[in-house]
């Protein structure tokens, strides 16, 4: 098999960077949530790739747990976002002016 280790890792890194950028760039909480998913998927790809490189199954097992975490995160995150948007229709992260860093 052609050595695909580095391309896989680079692809994952690229996805991670795009996700991180999107999270800082976008103000829509739902899109920010999607960016988090993007980052987690990049990590998953990294895990699977490392697992294959080392011929170690644990890389895949970890991805399994990350999926569970992602699901739980999405549920809670959406619940919070729904609560916020219901209170302030059309809210984006821009509108969160009550609190300022």
């Amino acid at each position, binding site marked *: 098999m*052609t*050595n*695909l*280790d*580095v391309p*896989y*890792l*680079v*692809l994952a*890194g*690229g*996805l*991670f*960077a*795009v*996700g991180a*950028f*999107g*999270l*800082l*760039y*976008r*103000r*829509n909480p*739902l*899109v920010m949530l*999607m960016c988090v*998913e993007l980052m987690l*998927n990049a990590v*998953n*790809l990294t895990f*699977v790739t*490392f*697992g*294959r*490189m*080392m*011929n*170690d*199954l*644990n890389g*895949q*097992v970890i991805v399994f*747990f990350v*999926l*569970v*975490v992602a*699901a*739980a995160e*999405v*549920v*809670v995150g*959406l*619940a919070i*976002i729904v609560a916020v*948007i*219901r209170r302030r*229709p059309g809210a*984006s992260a*821009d509108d969160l002016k009550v609190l300022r860093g």
Partner: protein
Amino acid sequence: MSVQLVVFFICALIALFGAGGVVWSRSPVHSALSLVATLFAIAVLFLNQNAQFLAAVQVIVYTGAIVILILFVIMLLGVDKLENLADEPLGIGFRVAGGVVAVALLAVLLAVFFFGGRTIVTGKPAQATFGGTSTYQPISQQAVSNPQAGVIDTADVPNINLLGKQIFTQYILAFEVTAALLTIAVVGAVVMAHRSKQVQPIPDEPESLDSGADLAAIDAAGEEVREA
């Protein structure tokens, strides 16, 4: 050029375009659909790397549940309006910071993965002693050096069986903890779904509260100390 390579590049392109679509779509719905494309591409890449079960789970859980949930929320709340990405309500700094972080991140990662090239050292102890030209060792030696690890390419045993074994042996605690995680998700969703009856109005900006001379005096003292 092997099939795997072709598959990789096609999927990589789809994944990257999808990721770009998530970030640069003005409509959340488009973002979500782009995310689906990326997730599918990653599922195929999982298949490409012998992770058949994960590929299935990826499609079922992510595209089947998570993205649908997100889309559902978008539709439910009617927030599928277009966002003007040129708008800079928080000042240009925040987005510049985002760009800088992302570029720095990418640069570091590329430096490690790409220019580090074939000397990426993955964690097989023997590897360091056997010279650095190969990034990983033949399977037989792997199995000896790390008896705990499940081996991917064991003949004839389905991927899912091996995964199951690992989950119920080495990662049994982690598996049990996911129970707690899901409990939290349920409780959290229930808590946030409560509709409160009386809603407190948003107070005005709680700034410029202390005009007292004493506090000014402290600040003055602080200034002096800093100067001293």
